[in-house]
């Protein structure tokens, strides 16, 4: 079957097939789309891939994706630089920003602590976060790590390091999503909602 394709097409299918969610059939379909599209359009795709690999680097303050020394959020003077929201990945930052409710700055850890996989605090950007809190005017650190055992473990570890510093440590609320019904909520969500119940003002 492989011999049906020339070497360059085979290579393209192989490379596309490495992408997440792309199986052999989809890789073939994408390869043929690229083959049949105009040269300019195909090369624009190649240039875009090259550009992100060559120009994107971590922001020197928060480790978000940046094309200069600072990411657009850290470089924005209208942001509240006194509040740092700690996330695991740049993708989490994007999700929070899409709500339109966040005016804070971020700190991207680059993952979470996972003792069973041998990932410890030194493998993340936790030291830099502590430096930022110590050296700056930070008044609040918002933990927005994933609501998993390891995400919460990471938040606890960071909180233990920040204890003693004049900074408020909070974490995102969890429980029933607005607009949902209790009947269809899963046990985990309900457990969080019960344990995190709040007084009605």
């Amino acid at each position: 079957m492989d011999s049906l394709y020339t070497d360059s097409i085979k290579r393209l299918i192989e490379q596309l097939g490495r992408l997440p969610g792309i199986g052999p059939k989809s890789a073939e379909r994408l390869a043929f789309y690229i083959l049949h599209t105009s040269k300019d359009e195909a090369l624009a795709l190649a240039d875009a891939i090259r550009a992100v690999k060559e120009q994107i680097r971590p922001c020197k303050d928060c480790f978000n994706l940046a094309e200069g020394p600072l990411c657009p959020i850290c470089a924005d003077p209208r942001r509240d630089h006194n509040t740092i929201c700690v996330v695991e990945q740049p993708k989490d930052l994007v999700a929070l920003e899409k709500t339109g409710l966040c005016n804070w700055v971020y700190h991207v850890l680059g993952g979470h602590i996972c003792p069973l996989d041998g990932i410890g605090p030194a493998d993340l950007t936790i030291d830099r976060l502590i430096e930022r809190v110590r050296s700056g005017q930070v008044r609040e650190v918002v933990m927005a790590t994933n609501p998993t055992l390891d995400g919460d473990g990471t938040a606890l570890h960071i909180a233990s390091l920040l204890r003693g510093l004049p900074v408020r440590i909070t974490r995102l609320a969890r429980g029933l999503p607005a607009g949902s019904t209790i009947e269809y909520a899963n046990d985990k969500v309900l457990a969080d909602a019960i344990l995190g119940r709040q007084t009605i003002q």
Partner: protein
Amino acid sequence: MLIKDQAICIRTIDYAETSQVITLLTDTYGKIRAIAKGSKRPRSPFGGPIEVFSYGPAVILDKPHAQLGTLTEFQPRFEIISGLTRNLQAYNAAMLAAELVDRFTKDHDPHPGLYQLVLGFLRDVVSGPNPLPATIGFQLGLLRQVGMQLVLDGCANCRRPYSEDWPAYYFSSSANGLVCRDCEGSFPDRMMLGLEAVRGLQDQANLASAGPVARSVARILIDHITRILGHQLRTARQFLQGMACHGSSG
């Protein structure tokens, strides 16, 4: 073979985009690894991704010659996870326990009592103020379960019964327990213990209010286990560091 048993998850590995390979410690059948198909899907049959320390009744389709079974049903309970996400010391201790159980047991090798030991330990660390004595008790219990019980009621070499009148107390990993002064010269790896540490090893209730002693006993046990396994535990460093921070702050 369809296995229906109480089980606790001690390890998860993501498999493809929507599934996980999980390691379950069952009450009756020992450790079983299984694939949880679709566990990470929004409408997961298991109520969401399976996390370490979720526990409850499980049904596993276990094929005789396959390395992995298939998890078909799991109704996990989350109160242990909820407790661990509020206490860093408990979290570190629980992670250490999960790694120890995984390393010391083989697939499909039943250890009657081990499931209850793990569950009891997790409940203790979640509810107790200081997880260290419980962790030490768990390590000793695990060694007993896997046939490597420490000799703590006498000299592991000459069998002389333990007495608080001994002029000095030693622990030797190669002797697998306490060693008296007459025998300590034969064990280059021996270390001297205080009386409080010996009492703590024999009964963890004696460690409840003895912070530095409990930490030294925990360190001795981790060194001993590392020697048995022949390599470092991944979770030990964070456990020991957390223990040191806890000690210095409290």
